[in-house]
Every structure is written in C-alpha cells, then in structure tokens.
C-alpha cells in the first residue's frame, strides 16, 4: 500500500521482466471484498476483485476472484501474455485450487509429475510420474521447496 487507498503492484513475468503499476482501492469491506484498479496512465490497465462469502449450509467459504487486464502492445505485452498462458482463466483456476489446498491441508500437494508445488507449470518441463533423481531433488532444495 502506498496510501490509505492507493497501492503499488508488481507482477513477475518471464525473462526476469517485472510489470509494475499503481492502483487505487475501489472497495474494501473487511474480510469480504477487496477490489482494485490501476490508475490513469499506468503501464498495465487492470482491475480486480476478490470476494469471500460464507458458503450455504456452513460449508466453508467461497472465494471468487475477478481479474481484468489489458496488456500493452509490444515486447512487454507479449511477455505478459506468455506468462498468463493461452488460457489465463485456467492459470487463475490453478492458483485458486492451490490456495484451497493451503487453506485446507496446510501445503501444496506435490505429485511426481509436478513436484514444484506452487510454481506455475509453464516454468518447468513436464516429467514422468516417477521418483525424482538426485539432481532434480537438489534443484528443488536449492529453491528451498523440499522438506528436509
């Protein structure tokens, strides 16, 4: 946050690019709704909203995320598009699933196929469902992602 209703955002993109923008908070009801929008003239035109409401029947909490963005043309836009993938709503779905895993089980589930847990799948090559080699384990440990 950079003020009572303003914030500065940074999103990492491939090739060590960082996309940054300023935003103003357009709505904030404690623990229920938070919304934001980028300010006039920002590099990235974006707005979003996170709603969390109690599910009917006492079945936990429903979390809804709406994310709108309009990428600039040129290299930055292409890099950002690549980061979000062909299907940005799928990337958001995957993030929400991992969020649910953390909320309900305390961690992100790793399979042999996807041992890198919360990192986006595009950043790693597909691997078969078989135990990791020493080199692969070292690479994960270097990222402090594997339990000792």
């Amino acid at each position, binding site marked *: 946050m950079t003020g009572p209703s303003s914030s500065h955002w940074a999103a990492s993109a491939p090739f060590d690019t960082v996309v940054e923008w300023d935003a103003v908070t357009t709505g904030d009801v404690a623990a229920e709704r938070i919304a934001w929008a980028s300010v006039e003239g920002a590099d990235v035109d974006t707005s979003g909203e996170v709603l969390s409401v109690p599910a009917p029947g006492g079945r936990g909490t429903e979390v809804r995320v709406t994310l709108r963005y309009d990428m600039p043309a040129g290299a930055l836009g292409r890099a950002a598009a690549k980061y979000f993938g062909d299907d940005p709503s799928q990337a958001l779905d995957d993030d929400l699933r991992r969020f649910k895993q953390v909320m*309900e089980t305390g961690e992100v589930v790793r399979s042999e196929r996807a041992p890198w847990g919360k990192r986006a799948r595009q950043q790693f090559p597909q691997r078969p469902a078989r135990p990791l080699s020493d080199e692969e384990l070292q690479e994960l440990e270097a990222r402090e992602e*594997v339990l000792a």
Partner: protein
Amino acid sequence: MKANCWVGPNEVEVQDVPDPTILNSRDAVVKITSTAICGSDLHLLDGYVPMMEKGDVLGHEFMGEVVEVGPGVDGLRLRVGDRVVVPFPIACGACLACRAELYSCCENTNPNAGVAEKLFGHPVAGIFGYSHLTGGFAGGQAEYARVPFANVGPIRIESDLSDEHVLFLSDILPTGYMGAEMCDIQEGDVVAVWGAGPVGQFAMDSARVLGAATVIAIDDVPYRLEMAASQGYRTIDYSDTDVRSALLELTGGRGPDKCIDAVGMEATHGAAHVHLYDRLKQAVRSESDRPHALRQAILSCRSGGIVSVIGT
C-alpha cells in the same frame, strides 16, 4: 530401485528408477511387499486412458512396510515399521468430500484437476500410478512408493493375515463392496451382478453379507462362472443365453431387485450390433465408455429397483 514402467502403448518395462523421497510433510515411504495388476491397468497399457508419459511408474494396488515418514505424520496414526495396505485414491482428509468419506472424490490431491475437470466434468482424486489425468503420482508396482497424506489413507494391518488376504483392501474389495452398498440391499433381495471378475466376485460376496437372498452372476468366462457357482450363486452365461429373459425367468417375471454393473469400461459384452455401435462411438472418442452391460442392467431391473454402476 526397480519399477514397472509404461514406455508406450502395449509396452511396459521393469526399469531402474530413483528411490522415492519425502516431498510433502505428511508423506510416508512404503517398502512394498505385495502389489497387484488391476483390470483397469489394461486401460493404461493399451492407451485407452489418455495422458500417460514414457517412464511413468504403474500400479495402484500395493502394501508393505512403512520405512520413512514426513514430519507432519501423526505418530499415533502411523509409524516406521507399521505394516499397511494403501488404498488407491490419495485423500487429504480435510476437504468436503473427504469429510463425507468420499475419498475418491478428494478435492485437493489431484494437481492436474484442471485438465481432469475438462474431460470428466469434475476432477477425481489423485491416484497412484494412474496417468497424469489423476495427478501423475508414481505407482506401487515397484520396490518402494511415496504415499502422500499417509495419516489418512493407509490401513494398518495388525493381525497375522497374509498379504494375499489383505491386499484386496487397496481397491477391488472396497470397490465391489461399494457397488453392493450403493444399491441399498434389503433382506431377501435378488441381486444380479454383471461381470464376475475380481470386483464382481467381491460385489456378490458383499451383496450376500448385506442380506441378498439370491445372487446371480452374469459373465461368459467359464472359470469365473464356476467360481461364482462354487459360492452358491446362480450363473448366466451371456454367450449362449439371453440375459434379460433368463433374469425374468429367475425372478417370477419381475426382474432382479438390485443390479450391479461390475463390468468395467472395456467389456465386450452382449449383442454384436450394440457392441459395434459402442465401439464406433469409442473410435471417435464421442463416448468414453462402452455401456452395453449398463443398458442391459437398466432394462432388466425390476420396476422401482436400483442399478449400481462401478465399472472402471
């Protein structure tokens, strides 16, 4: 360690692969003493189930001894040295499905849920050694396996029953039992079971335990029908008998009270033209199972009866 790996359609190979290690806090590593090949492994072998990768370790029915546990495994629940049977679905124990004891529907254990959802409508839980559609977990046709959420699934075996007497708890016994349980069997019911393979045999035994007065096995493999007959069940060989007529004959024209489809996806049951129709649809992937036995079960079941489907 050595492991049975999928290398391509209709080709598997025992390969040397790395030993498994703890990756999540509630993992255990199990040294495998017995493992089974499931009928449903055939769907992986022949490429019927998509999303296999060269080098995947197969196997979802296994048991053995716990040799390592992660820091999050409750010592009162599971310890190194315990003898365990590992159920095939990986279940977190915390989500809505798990709290309703619908462990195969766990909402948290399939890291590939997004893709599975597109194909099935809803994702299934993570499953050991069962394609990347069910998460890409290494399987148990190996010397060791990593078992996530080990304080939820594994069944501790404290008796001296042999492996052969308890290994079925990993899949086929609970699968068969569920088939019988889902059709709400009442004392005195007539229960017909399509498919007298291992799951079907367990479904028949479960039906009897739950109160069925008459159990009828439907198959065309002589040794399966003989096994059912030796347990005291009626049998129908569909290769030389019209199943629906035979069932009506056996039930005073009413039809069985409860019908269980324990056939599985790749059955070659029944009338040639229906089978061809199913195969054609299958060939263009317009339908993902071959529902002939199911159709027959629905047509044969008595009015107001229950049809239970567990084919995998």
